[in-house]
């Protein structure tokens, strides 16, 4: 068999396959049906909360909120664990849709690009869904229809700005800091990082970011990267900015081992129970100087309740104003001295959910609706 025949082989296969696919494109049935928008009966409904994994504190809280709401509304609840994989997420959601009940769904998407597939499938199955945190900017709920009730999130820019200023103040408005973003292609992480830079450029010209290493929301990786950065910059590091508290745990451990915990300040997003504990224990003599407050149980409850209202016909998404289809909810800057004002919510999740049901999804303290998306990531000059 000659070399020529070998090299021509793939070409032949390409030809054959493209021919085949072009053949099947013509005149074949469509599997995506039309989404219904007629009000549904409560007993036909099933609630679904989809999270990236079940062990991260934030997602655990997502599940908690869903469970509480489901109990209050007395609707069965299903949990989808994406195990960090878009494919698993999508196919599991499809599997639940296939079981026939009409879904009221809250999805914490693994990647922005999962959103279109999910909302289309839910639409096809006649369910109602809200997406949190990640979706393509082009994907406008209004364009999809009532079944994609809303996209909701807390502002990442604000989160970044708020932690950045807290950190800068704590280190005396000057000096070097390091930044540990999350997964590189996550818009959540990207917006928080952008917010940080925006704040620094605007108000803290003397604070410089020495290094920025994505650490994939992974404490272990954040720990490793921090170690390298300590070796690289030594005591030039005055502060550490991380995109979530999980990575902060790893970073703090690294600085603790280097004996620098007392000399360096930390800020991050999410005020996880672990962080609360660290603050209460006054780790590193007040090492943590700034946090943001928003809660997984609040997010899931808001998302599910919005979808629920649309499902039973309480609200008609098509008539809602833009900010209620693509929403930004309040996020609060927290300094260690006044975390207790916020923790009170955690002590009474049930009570909070009651007020949510009472006030509706858009104006429940401490996370009322504050603006409309999509968040534009500003382009930095320099």
């Amino acid at each position, binding site marked *: 068999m000659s070399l020529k025949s070998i090299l021509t082989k793939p070409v032949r296969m390409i030809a054959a396959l493209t021919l085949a696919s072009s053949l099947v494109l013509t005149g074949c049935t469509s599997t995506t049906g039309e989404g219904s928008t007629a009000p549904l009966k409560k007993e036909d409904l099933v609630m679904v909360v989809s999270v990236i*994994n*079940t*062990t*991260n*504190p934030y997602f*655990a809280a997502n*599940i*908690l909120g869903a469970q509480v709401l489901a109990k209050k509304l007395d609707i069965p609840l299903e949990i989808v664990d994406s195990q960090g994989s878009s494919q698993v997420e999508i196919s599991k959601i499809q599997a639940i849709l296939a079981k026939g009940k009409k879904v009221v769904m809250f999805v914490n998407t693994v990647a922005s690009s999962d959103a279109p597939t999910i909302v289309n499938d839910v639409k096809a199955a006649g369910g109602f869904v809200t997406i949190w945190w990640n979706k393509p900017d082009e994907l406008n709920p209004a364009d999809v229809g009532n079944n994609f009730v809303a996209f909701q999130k807390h502002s990442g820019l604000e989160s970044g700005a708020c932690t950045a200023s807290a950190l800068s103040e704590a280190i005396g408005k000057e000096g070097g800091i390091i930044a540990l973003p999350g997964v*590189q292609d996550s818009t959540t992480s990207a917006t928080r990082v952008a917010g940080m830079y925006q704040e620094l450029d605007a108000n803290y010209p003397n604070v410089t970011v020495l290094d920025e*290493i*994505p650490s994939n929301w*992974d*404490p*272990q*990786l954040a*720990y*490793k*990267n921090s*170690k*390298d*950065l*300590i*070796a*690289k910059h*030594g005591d030039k590091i005055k502060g550490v900015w991380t995109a979530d508290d999980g990575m902060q*745990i*790893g970073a703090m*451990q690294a600085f*603790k*081992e*280097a004996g620098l915990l007392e000399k360096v300040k930390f800020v991050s997003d999410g005020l*996880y*129970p*672990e962080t609360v*504990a660290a603050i209460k224990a006054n780790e590193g003599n007040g090492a943590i100087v700034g946090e943001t407050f928003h809660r997984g149980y609040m997010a899931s409850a808001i998302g599910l309740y919005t979808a629920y209202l649309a499902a039973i016909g309480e609200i008609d998404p098509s008539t809602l104003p833009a900010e209620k289809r693509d929403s930004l909810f309040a996020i609060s800057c927290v300094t260690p001295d006044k975390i207790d004002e916020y923790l009170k919510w955690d002590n009474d999740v049930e009570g909070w959910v009651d007020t949510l049901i009472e006030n509706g999804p858009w104006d429940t303290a401490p996370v009322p609706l504050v603006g409309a998306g999509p968040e534009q990531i500003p382009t930095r000059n320099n």
Partner: protein
Amino acid sequence: MSSTATNDKPRNRVTAGQPNNVIAGFIKRNVEVISISASILVLATIFSILNPRFATIENLQNLLNQAGLPLIIAVGATFVILIGSIDLSVEGVMSASGMAFVLMSANSRGGTDFGFWAYVVAIGLAATLGFFSGVLFTKVKVPSFIVTLGMWYVGLGIATVLFGTDTMPFLTNDDLSTWASQQNLGMPNNFLLGLLVAILGALLLRFTSFGRVTLAVGNNEEIARGNGLKVNRNKVTIFVLAGAISGIAGIVATIQLGAVNPTIAAGNLFIALPAVVIGGTSLAGGKGSMLGTVLGVILLTTLTNGLTLADVSPNFKTAVSGAILILAIVITAWSQRDRLRISK
């Protein structure tokens, strides 16, 4: 993946002890060790030129500190690869044992502190998973690749179940949670532990019938059976050993972080495996050394650490280490190129 035809039949029938000089022979025998050591030196020089801080004591200690965990894992992996098999379950088994360990030690979730027994149970659990891999592999004849792939998820599952929905458990004992990076003889504890495991592994390989039978099985399993060697027992033992070592690694990982979640071990396998291969252990089995493995781990850790210090954009890091991996194996294999050579 693994060649079954051991094709080193004597082509040229001249009895060996070829007259070419001793140095050449030595180099020929230790080509891997020498070329890796060389490449480590080269990299180190380049990095310290790019960033003087690379050569500082602090960084070198940090480097060893990061080498500790992969080193422990790589030792187990070496044994498995020596019989031409592979163990992908490492990360899952690590999380399972790590989770068990923290939950049985003094931790932020409360619960009783079983002290010493926490270690026993954690390593025991890991060894058991290894045992099951070994049995499924030898008795049911499922390729190690797939058994251990499955066992990876099983371990992960166990960890997730143990974790439940509660908060992330921290080790509350500070001496313990900083042990890994404490220095002794100028070297961090976890690296010393890794070194200890490696030395034990080397001794096991050189001075016990277990070790020698391992080499024999790796060289030619059929002959080994024909000679009445207890092949299956040897294989199962290896997987139990590898499991136990992963268990130790799991404990070390949790100690380093001072806390544990199911993804505690993420990414470790794909440092350890290339390290073993670069270290000159043949994926076909029967050929390899612990020294090579140790050097392989140091090479890769030097690389990742150096790239960070050299301000290489994170986007390019994997590419660079990938390229270096290729370069390393190509250089090692170049001398042995031949038109009849079989490489899987």
